[in-house]
C-alpha cells in the first residue's frame, strides 16, 4: 500500500513539471519570429540592402530558436516572416500583394475544405463581394478606403451565410454544382444590377496609401500597401490557426471525418458546416477588399468561375489541411498564372493555361496532401518530434 502511494505521489509532480515545461516552450515559440522580423527591418532601415536584411533575419531566427530550444518549426516561421518582410525590396510589391490576396482567400478554403470537408466553387464571388463593398462604399459614399475593410468582411460573411445555409446541406458533387452556379451567376448579376456597381466597366478607386520614409528606406505606395496586406494576413493567420487548434477546430475535423459519429457525440453538423462557410467567406471578403485597394479597380468579369478555381487550385496544389499549404499554393498559382506568357515549343507559343492545367493534374496525381504535405513529410522524417 505504501509503495503504491509513494509511486503515485512522485509521479504527479513529475507529470506537472513536464506539462509546465511544454507550456513554457509553447509560449516562447513566437520569440524567434519576432526577433527575426525586427532584425530584418532594422538591417533594412540602416543598410538599405535587401540581401543583408534577409541574411540577418534568417540567422536571427535560426540562432534564437536554437538558444531557446523552440524547435525547427519556430525557426521556419521566423525565416518565412523575414522573407515576407524583405520580399517587397527584391520583387514587385504589387505582385506580392496579389499573392497575399490569393493566400487569404485560400485560407478560407482551408477552413472550409481541410477542416469540415466541404467543396466550394463560390470563393471567387465572395472575394468579389468584398471587393465591390470596398469599391462602392468608397466611390459612391465617400467612405475612406481603410474604413471599408470591416464592412467588406461583414458583408462577405453575410453572403457566406446566405449561400452557406442552402449549400451546406448538400454533399460532394451536389455542393460543387450549387456553388458553381453561384460563381457563374455572380458576374451576370453584377451586370444586371448595372449602374450602382458600375455595370460592365466596374469602379475605379484612388490609391489608399502614400509613399513613406522609414530610416534610410523610402517606401512607394505599393510597398506600403504590401505591408498593410501582410499585417492583415498575419492577423488572419493567427486567428485561423487558433481556431484550428481550438475545440471548434477539433469539432470541424470530426464533422469532416464522420458526420454520424460527430452528431452522436453532440456536435451539431449543420452548425459547424455553416459557420465554416461564413468564416471562409469572411476571409474572402477581406481578400477582396485588399485586392480592390491594391489593384485600384473592380470589374465584374474578374470574379467568376475561373477566379474561384484559382483558390481551389491553391489548396489542392499546396495542401488543403494546413494554412501553410494554402500559402504555398497561392504562391504556386500566382507563379503559374502570370509568369509564363506563352512558352515556345516547336515554333508554337503554348498558352500558359496549358502549363497551369498540366501542373494541376500532375500535382494531384503525384503529391499526396499537396506541396506542404510533401515538405512536412520530409521535415517530420528528418526531425521527428521528440517528447521533451
Amino acid at each position: 500500500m505504501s509503495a503504491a502511494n509513494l509511486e503515485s505521489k512522485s509521479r504527479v509532480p513529475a507529470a506537472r513539471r513536464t506539462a509546465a515545461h511544454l507550456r513554457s516552450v509553447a509560449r516562447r515559440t513566437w520569440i524567434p519570429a519576432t526577433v527575426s522580423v525586427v532584425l530584418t527591418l532594422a538591417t533594412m532601415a540602416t543598410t538599405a540592402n535587401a540581401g543583408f536584411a534577409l541574411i540577418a533575419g534568417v540567422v536571427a531566427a535560426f540562432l534564437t530558436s536554437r538558444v531557446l530550444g523552440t524547435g525547427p518549426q519556430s525557426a521556419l516561421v521566423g525565416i518565412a516572416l523575414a522573407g515576407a518582410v524583405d520580399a517587397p525590396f527584391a520583387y514587385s510589391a504589387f505582385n506580392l500583394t496579389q499573392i497575399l490576396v490569393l493566400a487569404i482567400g485560400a485560407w478560407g478554403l482551408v477552413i472550409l475544405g481541410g477542416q469540415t470537408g466541404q467543396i466550394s466553387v463560390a470563393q471567387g464571388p465572395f472575394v468579389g463581394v468584398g471587393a465591390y463593398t470596398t469599391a462602392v462604399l468608397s466611390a459612391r459614399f465617400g467612405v475612406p478606403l481603410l474604413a471599408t475593410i470591416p464592412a467588406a468582411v461583414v458583408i462577405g460573411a453575410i453572403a457566406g451565410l446566405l449561400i452557406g445555409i442552402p449549400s451546406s446541406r448538400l454533399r460532394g458533387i451536389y455542393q460543387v454544382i450549387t456553388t458553381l452556379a453561384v460563381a457563374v451567376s455572380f458576374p451576370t448579376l453584377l451586370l444586371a444590377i448595372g449602374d450602382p456597381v458600375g455595370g460592365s466597366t466596374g469602379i475605379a478607386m484612388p490609391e489608399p496609401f502614400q509613399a513613406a520614409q522609414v530610416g534610410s528606406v523610402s517606401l512607394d505606395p505599393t510597398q506600403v500597401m504590401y505591408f498593410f496586406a501582410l499585417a492583415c494576413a498575419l492577423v488572419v493567420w493567427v486567428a485561423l490557426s487558433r481556431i484550428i487548434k481550438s475545440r471548434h477546430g477539433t469539432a470541424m475535423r470530426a464533422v469532416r471525418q464522420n458526420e454520424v459519429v460527430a452528431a452522436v457525440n453532440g456536435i451539431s453538423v449543420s452548425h459547424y458546416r455553416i459557420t465554416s462557410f461564413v468564416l471562409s467567406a469572411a476571409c474572402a471578403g477581406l481578400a477582396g477588399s485588399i485586392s480592390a485597394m491594391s489593384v485600384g479597380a473592380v470589374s465584374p468579369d474578374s470574379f467568376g468561375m475561373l477566379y474561384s478555381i484559382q483558390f481551389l487550385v491553391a489548396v489542392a496544389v499546396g495542401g488543403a489541411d494546413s494554412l501553410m499549404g494554402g500559402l504555398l499554393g497561392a504562391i504556386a498559382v500566382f507563379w503559374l498564372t502570370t509568369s509564363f506568357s506563352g512558352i515556345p515549343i516547336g515554333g508554337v507559343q503554348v498558352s500558359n493555361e496549358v502549363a497551369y492545367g498540366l501542373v494541376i493534374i500532375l500535382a494531384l496525381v503525384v503529391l499526396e496532401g499537396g506541396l506542404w504535405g510533401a515538405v512536412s513529410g520530409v521535415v517530420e522524417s528528418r526531425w521527428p518530434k521528440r517528447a521533451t
Partner: protein
Amino acid sequence: MLLLQDVVSALGAGAVYALVALALVIVFRATGVVNFAAGEIATFTTFVAWELLADVGLGFWLTLVIVVGFSALVGVVIYLFIMHPALKKPEFVIVMLTFGLFELFNGLSNTFWDPSPRSFPAPVEGPPIVIGSIFITQESIVDGAIAILIMLLLMAIFRYTKLGLGFRATTDNRFAAEVVGIRPWQMYAAGWAMATAMGGVGGMMLANMLGLSASMMGNVLVFALVAVIIGGLESPLGAVVGGLLIAVVAAVFSSLSFIGTDLATPLMLVIVIIVLLVRPSGLFGQRKAGLL
C-alpha cells in the same frame, strides 16, 4: 407569336444541351465523376473539326465521323491516364482533376487557334422554312436532328448491343459484372469515349449555330449541368428532357421584359438550387443524392 418563335429557335440549342447533359450522365453513372471539362474538351475537338473543314478541305459528314473517332480517343486517353488512377482518391481530388482538364483544354484551344469567334460551316444550306409566322432555318433542323439521332443511337447501343449490356451490368453491380468476366475498366473507358464523342458532335452543332470560339461552351456546360440536376444525375432520359426544357425556359425568361437576358442565367441557377434542396434526385432520378 414572338414567344413561340423564340421557343422553336431555342430547341436547336436545347438538343445540344441535351447531348452534353447526356454525356455528363453517362460519365457520372460509369465512374461517379461529373466532368466539368466536358465543354472545353468539346471546344477543342470542334477546333480540330474546323481545321479539317477549312484547311484540309474535307466534307462535313466525313469530318463529323473523324471528329467522333478523335473525341472518343481523347476520352479513352483521359480516362486511362488521368481518371482511372484517381478514382479511389477523395472527391475533392477528382473534382480538381476535371478543373485541371478544363484549364488544359481551354489552354490548348487558345494556343493553336485565335480566340475570336469564327463562323463554322453548316451541314446543309438553304432558305429557312416558314410555318405560319415562325421561321426555322434548315441548318437548325439538321443540327437538332443529328443531336437526336446520336442520342437514339446511344440508347440503342445501351439497349441492344453486348457492349451496352456490359456497361449497364458494370454500373449496376460492378462485382457481379467482374464475376461473369466483364472488365470494368474497359466499360468505363468506353463510357468516357462515348461521352467525349457526344461532346464532339454537340460542339460541331453548336459552333454552327453560335459561331466557333474558345469560350463557346462556357454557358453550354452550365445549362447542361442545370439540365442534369433537373433531370437527375443518374437518369439519361432526364438529361435529354432537362436539356430541351432548360433551353425553352431560358428562351422564355429572356423574352420576358422584367427578367431579360442578364437575369435569365442567375434565375435558372436559383431553380437548380431549389430543385437540389427539394428533390435532390431530380425529376427522373431514383437514387437518393448527397443530401443528408
